[in-house]
């Protein structure tokens, strides 16, 4: 079975935030919750690079390890999902996650956390596929329709890739070769790059 992965190509991302917008729109995500965000390193300086980041669907997911109620599970495709009926909104997954993926809508008095929300790789949750319950809690289930995550599907520069890890590796490897990057860290030299088919 495929091992689903995201990859963001720092040489291509132009920080347009369209992936963020597409995600919010596709899953009808409330204010204050961002399943995906774009972070720019060295903004305005030489070497500026942007990366789009969301849940990276880790193999040994820290969120699942520290969850006090054990609400996480990994699908056969390697997608890390969680059960909002079991989540108690403690925030531990947010402390443990390296990517800042878990998000918490403000639920009640004193801004206590609501049930955690995060990127589902557009794969919904434990509810029946494409049911209204699933949509309300987790957003659209595109994987069950045979589609890949929308953020990557509509990325204008194809910086953000989503899908089978092997395929993604092949695509990225070809890009690296075409850019003329070498093992001697000469860097990407767009002048000397020969565009190949």
């Amino acid at each position, binding site marked *: 079975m495929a091992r689903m992965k995201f990859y963001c190509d*720092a*040489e291509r991302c132009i920080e347009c*935030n369209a992936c*963020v917008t597409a995600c919010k729109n596709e899953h009808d995500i409330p204010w*204050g919750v*961002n399943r995906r*965000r*774009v*972070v*720019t*390193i*060295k*903004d305005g300086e030489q*070497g500026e*690079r942007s*990366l789009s*980041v969301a849940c990276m669907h880790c193999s040994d997911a*820290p969120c699942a*390890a*520290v*969850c*006090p*109620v*054990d*609400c996480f599970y990994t699908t056969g495709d390697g997608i890390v999902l969680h*059960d909002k*009926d*079991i*989540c*108690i*909104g*403690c*925030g*531990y997954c*947010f*402390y*443990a*996650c*390296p*990517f*800042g993926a878990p*998000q918490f809508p403000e639920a009640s008095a*004193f*801004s*206590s*956390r609501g049930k955690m929300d995060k990127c589902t790789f557009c794969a919904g949750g434990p509810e029946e596929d494409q049911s209204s319950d699933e949509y309300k809690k987790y957003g659209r289930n595109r994987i069950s329709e045979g589609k890949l995550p929308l953020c990557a599907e509509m990325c204008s520069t194809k910086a953000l890739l989503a899908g089978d890890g092997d395929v993604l590796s092949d695509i990225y490897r070809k890009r*690296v070769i075409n*850019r003329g*990057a070498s093992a001697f*860290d*000469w*860097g*990407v*030299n*767009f*002048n*000397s790059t020969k565009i190949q088919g």
Partner: protein
Amino acid sequence: MLPVEPLQSDSNRQRVRAVTVRTLPMMMVCLLLAVFQVQAADTPTKPAGLISTSPGAELWREVRQRDGDVTGTTQVRSPGADVLVNVSGQAWREYRMEELIPKASVAILIVLVVIVVFRLLRGRIRIEGGRSGLRVLRFTTNQRIAHWATAILFVTLGLTGLTLLLGRNLLIPVFGAEGFSMIAGAAKFLHDYLGPVFMFALVWLFILFVRDNVPSPKIDLQWLLKGGGMFGKHVHAPRYNAGEKLWFWLASIGGLAVIISGLVLDFPIFGQTRATMEFYHWVHSVSAVILIVVSFGHIYMGTAALEGTFEVMQTGYCDSNWAREHHDLWYEEVKDSAEPVPGQQARTRREESTGAA
């Protein structure tokens, strides 16, 4: 005047050929040198043009925070959103899963075993002189209310906290994931809302009890050196013995740590970063586990261990013989205020009267 010779004269041709033959090797050497020089100049310098240091060693070093915190910019406005990879999460995960949960479990088990062993060795410790039928006021109503408010809150917070800490291992096998989710949700709710109330209860308790808990080094040290009379005869003690004083100060200082860290964790609306939350979770869990473990000792000593102890915090009065044995220095101060227990006569008088009859 020199004769003008045609350029293509034989002698001239020969001269050109001779020069060529002589200089050609030198020219070849120069050419070769030039070629090598070009190559030598090419090798060490990076080619000009639009360059970035990629495959990105530098970029990824920054992303992975190898050289300390690196923040970027982002449109998302939540604390820590500008950090691509949060490295403190792994340390916190290791602390919680590999240190806190196993060590807290072991500490609780050890203290329970110690209490059981102590019980088996000493049994229920009776009032040696028996009940006198006379009572002495030990705690005012105010003190008792403060104690029980703090105690009920402490036990509730301790149990709900332990539910969140150990429930995944202990309770999910019993109640299932969904059943435990309800329990844990309720536990978190109670923990979040009762925590701040505990602050008021503990401050109240501190104010009411601090006066007699001021250490008196000589007596306290003696009490501690003799093990508090745990395995032998009673030791001189004022109103509160050194063990009680230690528990008072541990509960106060540990309680303060638990309260401050708890407030930071309870209200995540002041822009606390993940590192801040992780640090205060560490403070909260360490001090809470210490308090819970020691409280087991306090609860056992206050209830089942000693005859005539639990009723003191129930009614506020203690038996005068109990006071004489456990807090002799205090009893000397208050023995004049001893009064008969209502509804029953003092044993000495009863004996006298039966003897007379």
